[in-house]
């Protein structure tokens, strides 16, 4: 862990961001979790066990794949894809789910809950719950259950209860509200596996630590094949766990540009987007101070994105901090741009990306022209797109969309 910054501070702050804005009922559990995590993060046996499951259960390390055809299509830099889509369950979410499930097991909890947007974190949690014999309840917005019906089916097959969140925009924000409310009631016997670098301290730090394996591997792999670090790394940002995971080990390497891609939905100048950093201002959501889409008086505004995993009005507090310090840049990509990149990667490389990851790919399309052939660009391909195929087919039919 050398050479990386020591954020958050002891009260869970990344600069002004983060903290613990939750009901009193949860505070003792959060302190306990912080202590347990601190102890286990220095426990060799725990770390070995984590490594074992990441390798043998999830299939790590994931490849860093040179996307030659996609690079040619874009006509710019050499593009490498960090293949988190090749993890067990099809996305980076399993890295964190394994870590937190082991935490639950080591702290004697027999029951876990989770929130999910696209369903990838829900599936990952249901998966590890099955493996470690934990009872599992997943909260999911009603709208997302419709958009990601396949993942709902998968979670139920794995033995999890899926509970629909029917308030507000009926998406990830509301599923998280329900999960927190449920946790307040069952805090004494239930472990809450938060799926992104959001929520009250110590979650943003813990989830980042469990996801940094993406960046650590990328660093080793790119040095092995290219003998140098990449010029730029792109990753999509909803809550921002895949981005935080791949960015984190590179933060001290100032020569590597870090770019987070937010969902611009129908455009950041319309009311229908999820660009919290580009269009929000600091506020409190789900226990942390961070950039938030809200009205003048602090009512949270509904987010919109074609991708359920990015459809969130907040963002992890460490991203807010990286934005404020200027270490990372955050840019918007629209539904349409993401969809077009979704087809481009599918057809050029035979890799169907998740719609979330397609936002990062779309940013590569924009930036490639301005980069040189010798430049190296790494994109975090955070998940595979099987879950999105049905919804895209439905939308294409509705819009008379050619398969372009």
């Amino acid at each position, binding site marked *: 862990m050398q050479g990386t910054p020591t954020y958050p501070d002891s*009260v869970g702050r990344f600069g002004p961001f983060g*903290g*613990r*804005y*939750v*009901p*009193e*009922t*949860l*505070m*003792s*559990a959060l302190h306990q979790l912080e202590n347990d995590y601190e102890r286990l993060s220095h426990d060799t046996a725990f770390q070995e066990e984590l490594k074992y499951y990441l390798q043998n259960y999830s299939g790590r390390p994931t490849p860093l794949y040179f996307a030659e055809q996609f690079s040619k299509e874009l006509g710019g830099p050499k593009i490498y894809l960090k293949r988190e889509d090749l993890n067990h369950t099809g996305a980076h979410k399993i890295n964190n789910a394994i870590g937190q499930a082991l935490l639950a097991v080591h702290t004697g909890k027999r029951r876990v809950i989770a929130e999910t947007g696209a369903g990838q974190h829900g599936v990952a949690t249901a998966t590890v719950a099955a493996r470690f014999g934990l009872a599992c309840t997943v909260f999911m917005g009603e709208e997302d259950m419709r958009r990601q019906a396949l993942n709902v089916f998968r979670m139920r097959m794995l033995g999890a209860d899926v509970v629909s969140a029917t*308030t*507000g925009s009926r998406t990830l*924000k509301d599923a998280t*509200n329900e999960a*927190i*409310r449920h946790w*307040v*009631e*069952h*805090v*004494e016997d239930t472990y809450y596996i938060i799926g992104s670098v959001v929520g009250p301290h110590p979650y943003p730090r813990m989830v980042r630590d469990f996801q940094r394996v993406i960046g650590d591997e990328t660093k080793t792999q790119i040095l092995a094949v290219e003998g140098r670090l990449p010029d730029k790394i792109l990753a999509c940002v909803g809550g921002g766990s895949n981005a935080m995971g791949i960015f984190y080990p590179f933060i001290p390497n100032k020569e590597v540009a870090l770019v987070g891609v937010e969902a611009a939905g129908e455009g950041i100048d319309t009311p229908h987007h999820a660009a919290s950093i580009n269009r929000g201002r600091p*506020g*409190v*959501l*789900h*226990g942390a101070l961070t950039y*938030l889409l*809200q009205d*003048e*008086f*602090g*009512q*949270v505004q509904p987010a919109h994105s074609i991708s359920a995993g990015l459809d969130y009005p907040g963002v992890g507090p460490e991203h807010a901090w990286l934005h404020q310090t200027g270490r990372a840049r955050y840019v918007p990509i629209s539904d349409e741009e993401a969809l077009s990149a979704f087809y481009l990667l599918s057809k050029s490389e035979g890799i169907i990306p998740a719609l979330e990851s397609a936002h990062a790919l779309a940013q590569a399309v924009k930036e490639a022209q301005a980069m040189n052939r010798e430049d190296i660009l790494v994109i975090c391909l955070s998940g595979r797109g099987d879950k999105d195929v049905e919804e895209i087919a439905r939308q294409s039919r509705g819009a008379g969309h050619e398969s372009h």
Partner: protein
Amino acid sequence: MNRIEAAFHKQTQRAALIPFLNTGDPSLDASLELFRSVLQAGADIVEIGVPYSDPLADGPVIQASAARSLKSGFQFPQVFELAQALRAETDKGLVAFTYINPLLQYTPERFFSDAKTAGIDGVIVPDLPYEESEPVLQIADRHGISLIPLVAPTSGEQRVTDICGSARGFVYCVSSLGVTGERVRMSERVQELVQTVRSHTSLPVAVGFGVSTPEQAQHLAEFADGVIVGSAFIRRIEGVLQQNLDFPVQTLRTAVRDFTEKLLQGMT
């Protein structure tokens, strides 16, 4: 002695009754009438709820109430309007209940200044735990407004000690684990919690979350200085609204007045 402490002290016969209602549910004018009704019927302090889009500490009844209020066009500064109207008529305790985000967006300085002008005596922020409260507490103190803290059955003695150390107005004991909403049974742990709090503060101790019947209020009144009732009031409002009356305000007034009286009968 401030108005909150006075409201507790005035009642030597019984515990103080503290109803919670949301501003703007079903409309700003109607909610003002409802606050008036509970105060006229004998409530000692009212909790003036500030509707919020994401009320994490609230169960379905108060969530739905907040949603109705927001849909009816509620805007944050209306809380001060409502408080000011009540203050012109009563010297009972007025306590605002708001989540932290609207307070931060309004800015704490402006919030407590406007609250003071409106005659608000105290503020409860359910998602502002002790660890995060210091900057807000300083500003509240400067304006002479009590930042009323919550303690929960999971708090543990050390946290109770710390929380009581900076408590103002009264201490709000959360009766059971979970969000607001009516419960069939009251946890036995709440009495223990009230005793622990008493050993660390001389401020009044009130109990809330889950109080749904006059019998429960009566039980809590035996060992607490105040009883907070929210969802049970709002469910009565909901019941009237579901009847789709042309002019529901009079029926709403009667409903909350009758329930206030019933609760008070149980508590004496």
